């Protein structure tokens, strides 16, 4: 399973890079989401994956008695998911706004003529 996840990480990163090299703003955003997901899985994998043992202490115990999934990567990813949602939500609304102003999804249309002269 680790090997599959490793391939998945590569795919997610590759797809993300491919998407941010596009001209469309929506694709750019999708690319950033890809990269974020790839990073999450990467962290998840590196903490070591364990099946069926969530880091929750049993009702009757005060601390873990046997192996359990590493809680730190999970805490990190949880934060990352939430923050990336904040980014995505803001970017979506921003895109909408840009589209309303420029009437285009093309990043090149955002270049003002003055900038092109430089």
């Amino acid at each position, binding site marked *: *399973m*680790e090997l*599959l*996840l*490793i*391939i*998945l990480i*590569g*795919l997610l990163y*590759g*797809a*993300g*890079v*491919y998407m*941010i*090299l596009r*001209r*469309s703003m*929506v*694709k750019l955003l999708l690319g950033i*989401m890809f990269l974020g997901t*790839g990073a999450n899985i990467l962290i*998840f994998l*590196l*903490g*070591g*994956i*364990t*099946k*069926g043992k*969530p*880091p*929750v*202490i049993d*009702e009757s115990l005060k*601390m873990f008695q046997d192996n359990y*999934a590493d*809680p*730190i990567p*999970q805490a990190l990813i*949880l*934060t990352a998911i939430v*923050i990336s*949602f904040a980014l995505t939500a*803001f970017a*979506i*609304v*921003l*895109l*909408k*706004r840009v*589209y*309303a*102003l*420029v*009437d285009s999804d*093309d990043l*090149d249309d955002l*270049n003002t003529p003055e*900038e092109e002269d430089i």
Partner: protein
Amino acid sequence: MLLTVLSGLIFSIVLVLFGRKFKAKWSILLPILPTLLFLYFAYQIPQISEGKSIIQHIDWVPSLGVNFDFHLDGLSLLFALLITGIGSCIFFYGRAYLKGHPYFDRFFGYLLLFMSAMLGVVLSDNILLLFVFWELTSISSFFLIGFNNDNPDSRKSALTALGITGFGGFFMLLALVLIGNIADTYTISELFTHRETILNHELYPLIIGLLFVGAFTKSAQFPFHFWLPGAMKAPTPVSAYLHSATMVKAGIYLLARFTPILGDHTYWNTTLLVVGGITMLYAAIHSLFRIDMKAILAYSTISALGVLTFLLGLGTREAMIAVSVFILAHALYKATLFMVTGIVDHETHTRDITVLSGLRKVLGPVALAGILAALSSAGLPFLTFGFIGKDLIYEATLHYTIPEWIWILTGLAVATNIGLVAAGFMAGIKPFVGTLPQEFEKVHLPYKSMWIPPLLLAILGVIFGILPALAGDFITNTASNAIWGNDTASHLKVWHGFNTVFILSLVTLIVGSLIYFINKPSLSKLQAVERLNNISPQRIITGYANDIVRFGQWYTNLFHNGYLRSYHLKIILFAEALIAYRLWLSGPINVDFWTLTYPDWYEIAIIFILIGAIYLVVTTPSRLTAVVGMSVIGYCICLIFVIYSAPDLAMTQFTIDTLSTVLFVLVLYKLPPFINLTSHTVLIRDAVVALGFGVILSLVAFKVWSEPISTEISDFYGENAYLLAKGKNVVNVILVDFRGIDTMFETVVLSIAAIGVYSLIRLRLKSSERE
């Protein structure tokens, strides 16, 4: 001494920033500061001339070796007197010259800044402090040359001057740091004791080479001389002060200051002789073809600076006396000539010597000053200080240590001086003799404060000429001692007897006068000479400078072309190269394949769905399909979290993914489908780059995964989650308890994003904003 330097700096800041607030009639106060400083330094003359020196030490940044160390010895005093003395004259003169100018206050601010910086240069006993002041003089010179900032020529000349002197200053800094490192001290007076260490160090040739670049650029030596004629775009008081009497001599000062430390070495002397020799002859010949009074003076100044460098290169006791005397003599007559030129320009609005003549009838005292200065520059015997200087130059060349060279060097000196005689006459006498053209009949004398300073300096030149011991015993003797490195008394005399030196002086004077009468400079001759400009150092160096600018533009356009995707591409390619290189360095990946777990069938299915969804999102032309694909990916990841013991993550991912999809669809449903804008080749290129990045990241993941990890922190949380924080879900405990403050700030970020989203949605477009 610190006060003498700082007072000017403080006043200049006040003037530049708040000068406008002061009333114009207060400008009478301006020359007070330089005059006071001059008196202060004059008061030190008796003490210094007895061979004492004054040292002041104030810590600034002791850990870096940068301190406010000041040292007033003979050489410093000579320069300090010139700076403050001529400075006072210039301040009086400039007040009248620039009366009513809108930037009057700023001009004097810059001038004061320059004066303090220059004082700093000659008083510093710390080489890094010296460098700071050195650069300050370059900067103030830049502002003063570009003072008429509405004139494009002026701006260009200012940039050239700053470029050349700044370039030299950079190299000089390297030399100074090297010296400081080798000798382990940055204090000049301590460096003397390390002379042998530096001289025998293998980097000695490099050090003096770098130092020479600094000194030669500042003192306008060939091939860096060309910024000086350009600098004449500055108002004339500036030319008189900075570009003939003081600042350009900073390079000479530097060389003289370092002569006892680095000098008396074959490399040192030969370089100075050659460069000085070329400069003095080249510039002297050039000056004969100019028709602009200021241009003549500019070239003759370059020539005089060449003479000084040349003399330092001779490296004999006589040469050092000649240096100190010639510095004083040149400053006196050249500043006068410049001020005279300024008056002529001010009153007749031309500086063309082919037009000007007979002005003695209307500008009597000015003509007197001009003629006296020209005679001093020509070295008229018995009457002028210039004669003493010229005498000493010949004395120095005739007594050179290598007999075969004597006649070459003397010949060079004579040829140069002949040129200087003629140039001095052209600028100082030509405009005043002959018949007065009708157009100049209405010319009248300017304010007294304009013509008194040059007259004063010219008369001072005559007094020193008649009584050279006055200047010699009190000022130049100790200065030459400081350059030479030990104390010996020498006395300046007017009459040395009817010897070779005297004959050479007479020959110089006569031939120079002949050339003055024969050579009639004209525009056509000037144009003929200017045709040679194509091979001049100026053309070559500015050519290089332009190439650098063009390279900069090309480079900037390459990397900063305004296309986001091109930035991304470069960053990613760079990252790929870097990570790949690191991976390659770290060697093969050692994996214990027994630790790998086998996937169940449903896991394989999830991965396949993921791969399909990724492919769909990347290739689909429809925005909605892409968004749906994205949410499929999110849910699949959610499933992976569920299987691999991360219930909290699964819940969060599920919620967030749903929300994102809803937001996407709600907000973006109106947008058009993707258009395929890019060509096939670009798509393939991007695909290759992306694939490469993916593979590299996979390898990184594999590599890191195969390394052992420390679980110390995780164990701590696992053990203490309930005991310390009374919570059984360890992930939750970490987030809200152990790392509670982090989570709080995360909430803040979310709130900010929420405010942003809300305000962007509520914001209505104004009709003017719609395109």
